């Protein structure tokens, strides 16, 4: 049952939130053992929250647009009093004293948080194998990865445990797993959704967004979490856009570009699905042509300097002094070293070292500075493409889901899974993935729709058309 249908049945009193949540919890209980989508299932908290929703309905108070909808949260979103681990040992025992803004908004809209989902440690990875608590499996094929870093949230939706989950997307961490698991995933415009309470990986790239089984549910969830938040200085000072209302508006007359640089390197079956998707858009009245965004080709290189640089600073605070893991040492410096050595996994350490190097005196201009210049070029080239196009499309990932372990020892091969998604983060522009058929291996393929900054409405219109035309 979709979130939209669930919420409307709960709001009218047709169904009780308690029943909905109990059903979700029982699905998790029976199904998650094989998948490990969740780090932590919040049974008591969820039931209590569901009861509260029911009490509101009984009292004649509208619980909100997500009334009684079970949602899962990536484990880097702060939840008051509930462990928030980022799938890392270093946050061992830490319970945030506050809810992230998005979590508060979900609760205020009547949604019920049923658990915290697994992820690559501190969102660094593309397979959810870099979790201190073990990998998550792809519900479409448990021998495959679900993608990452928000693999747990993608799997939770793909498995049907919850209709909506939240993730974070720094270089593709929502769209890539959504594509590999065959669900909808949205990376909003930078600043559309408050980052307050999202444990930072790379602050200038991180955005929170929804996973959902349908485009409508994704729109519904994004409407709830979007909108200005005074606690995030980078939050856009505008109300949330209206999305659900425009889903039926179609793409008649829209000009759509297929981004050559994000398409050429993809597998043939993935490109074939994209061609079918393009045909679908054309049949709905869009004008589609190939377009070049030259600087997008350098996205991955720039990303792997900027993101680790910011991460090296963002993750400095995990030092054993105030919270989380502490491994004692003979002095403070030794305590820092031992704590961080024990608390962080290998990929996190690799990126902290990369980022520290990229920011070092004498290297800053050649690395971080240069990457920021590339970022400017990417924005410029996207802007140029959007002068003649309303939207751009590309595959979301170059391949379908790969086997667990296939790239675990080859960081570069793993980094390449984000080649199609990274440019939107660097540009701060929105992009979303819509499932569109299967690859030759029978696994889901995603089509990515990209839009100019704050172009969510038109992006969702195209996504709805793609969903309707998907095989």
């Amino acid at each position, binding site marked *: 049952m979709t979130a939209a249908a669930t919420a409307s049945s709960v709001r009218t009193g047709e169904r009780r939130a308690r029943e909905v949540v109990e059903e979700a919890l029982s699905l998790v209980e029976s199904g998650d053992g094989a998948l490990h989508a969740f780090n932590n299932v919040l049974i008591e908290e969820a039931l209590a929250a569901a009861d509260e929703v029911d009490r509101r309905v009984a009292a004649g108070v509208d619980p909100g647009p997500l009334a009684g909808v079970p949602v899962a949260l990536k484990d880097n979103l702060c939840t008051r009093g509930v462990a928030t681990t980022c799938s890392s040992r270093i946050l061992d025992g830490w319970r945030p004293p506050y809810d*992230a803004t998005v979590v508060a908004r979900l609760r205020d809209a009547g949604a019920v948080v049923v658990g915290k989902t697994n992820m690559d440690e501190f969102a660094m990875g593309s397979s959810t194998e870099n979790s201190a608590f073990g990998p998550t499996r792809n519900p479409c094929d448990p021998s495959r990865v679900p993608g990452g870093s928000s693999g747990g949230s993608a799997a939770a939706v793909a498995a049907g445990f919850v209709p909506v989950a939240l993730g974070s997307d720094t270089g593709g961490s929502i769209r890539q797993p959504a594509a590999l698991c065959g669900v909808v995933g949205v990376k909003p415009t930078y600043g559309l959704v408050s980052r307050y309470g999202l444990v930072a990986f790379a602050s200038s790239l991180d955005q929170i967004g929804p996973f959902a089984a349908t485009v409508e549910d994704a729109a519904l969830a994004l409407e709830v979490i979007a909108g200005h938040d005074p606690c995030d*200085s980078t939050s856009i000072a505008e109300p949330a856009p209206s999305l659900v209302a425009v889903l039926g508006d179609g793409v008649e007359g829209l000009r759509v570009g297929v981004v050559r640089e994000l398409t050429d390197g993809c597998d043939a079956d993935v490109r074939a699905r994209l061609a079918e998707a393009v045909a679908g858009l054309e049949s709905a009245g869009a004008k589609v042509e190939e377009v070049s965004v030259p600087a997008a080709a350098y996205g991955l290189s720039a990303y792997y300097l900027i993101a680790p640089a910011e991460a090296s600073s963002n993750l400095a605070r995990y030092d054993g002094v*105030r919270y989380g893991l502490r491994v004692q040492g003979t002095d403070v410096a030794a305590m820092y070293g031992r704590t961080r050595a024990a608390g962080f996994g290998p990929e996190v350490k690799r990126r902290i070292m990369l980022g520290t190097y990229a920011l070092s005196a004498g290297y800053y201009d050649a690395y971080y500075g240069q990457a920021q210049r590339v970022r400017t070029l990417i924005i410029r080239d996207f802007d140029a493409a959007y002068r003649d196009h309303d939207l751009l499309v590309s595959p979301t990932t170059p391949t379908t889901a790969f086997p667990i372990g296939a790239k675990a020892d080859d960081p570069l091969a793993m980094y390449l899974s984000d080649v199609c998604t990274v440019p939107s983060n660097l540009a701060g522009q929105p992009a979303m993935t819509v499932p569109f058929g299967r690859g030759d291996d029978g696994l889901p393929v995603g089509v990515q729709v990209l839009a100019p900054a704050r172009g969510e409405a038109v992006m969702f219109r195209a996504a709805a058309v793609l969903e309707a035309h998907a095989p």
Partner: protein
Amino acid sequence: MSVVEWETVVGLEVHCELETATKLFCGCRNAFGDEPNTNICPVCLGLPGSLPVLNRQAVEFAMRIGAALHCDVRPSIFHRKNYFYPDMPKDYQISQYDEPINVEGWLELPDGSRVGIERAHMEEDTGKTTHVGTSGRIHGADYALVDYNRAGVPLVEIVSKPDIRSAEQARAYVSELRAILLAVGVSDARMEEGSLRVDANVSVRHAGSDQYGTRCEVKNMNSLRSLGRAVDYEVARQVALLEAGERVVQETRHWDEDDGRTHSLRSKEEAFDYRYFPEPDLVPVAPSPDWVASVRAALPALPAERRVALASRAGVAPADVATVVSLGLDELVTSAIDAGADPRLALARAGNEVAADIERAPSLEAAAFARVLAMEGEGRLTATQSKQVLGELLASGGDPEEIARAHGFEAMADDSLAAVVDEMIAAHPAEADRLRRGESKLTGFFVGKVMAITAGKADGKAVTRLLRERLG
């Protein structure tokens, strides 16, 4: 061997805590001396997921400082300064780096010299670490306690150009800067409490050279006096090194108040690589021209201007009113002069007696101050009595006349004083004779005698006058 003359070159970095209601990036109370770790929240504790939001009042205060220091107040951004320290919650400090809010200003000292201001930028303060253990020092401490109440308190760091040429000028600079900070109402600027912290970059060079010598940064001076001592010590140390044919090594040095020396803290090679990069959690600070203009327009009269005003009112040189102005007592003095007080007497009593109890000075009413000065001027109070009355006025307020009466400081009328003088002359004919013959030191003898007899109630000047009338 030729004698080389050395020139001292000093640049000062002054950290000033702003007296905003709340911290720089969160809504926590900005207060000194509260119970440890009570003014804290996820943001100033740097908890995962928290984000900074810039305090508008802090920006306004920083702009006031910039305007008062004749700086270009301009759009700016924040950077992260990365280094590990337990009292720094995020293990980076949000500071301003190559695009600070205030640049290129100057400050004029009472002697008329000008010191250039390179920049005055905003940053957050760290928490405060207390090392606990037998030695009370970092080395040998058993453990450390960290109080994060100070973490995130807004600071403005004011960096002078290397224009200062002596320890005395360094002190004058800090004292003038302090007066400006007080005047514009942004800080209580107390060195002893750490709301004003001074680091000195010290080097020496041959007099007349246009090259700078290798500098050392000296830290840990917590009074004007220790600043002066530290600069003098460091200059002497560097001169001694150079005269011995050795080199000054660029390093950070720690001033030890007890042994009166500076000690090497870390060398240039050991200096931190702060890995500055633009703070992605904040947006550029772009105060509108209107806002900057309104801050400039609302600036109160600054010390330099006030010195000129008071000096001309009192008929003295601006340097003579520097203390009074730097303590903010110029209004008090001006109104006393307006009420008819002798300007020099008003300056003296304000600069000494009132300054000595500066904490209470704000409660001293100008009219009462003027009244005391008038009583002293009329000879109804001796200098000693006047100081005493003033002290009590500061301590507990009240009416000067009543205080004087309560102490029996009844003015001795001229005729009764004259009687005492005559009595003393009669009692000491030999001394009177010598004074008459021009041995003027005997004036003191007679004044002493009169004072003893009158228990200090006599006005010394009046006694001198009466003696002169009688003994020529």
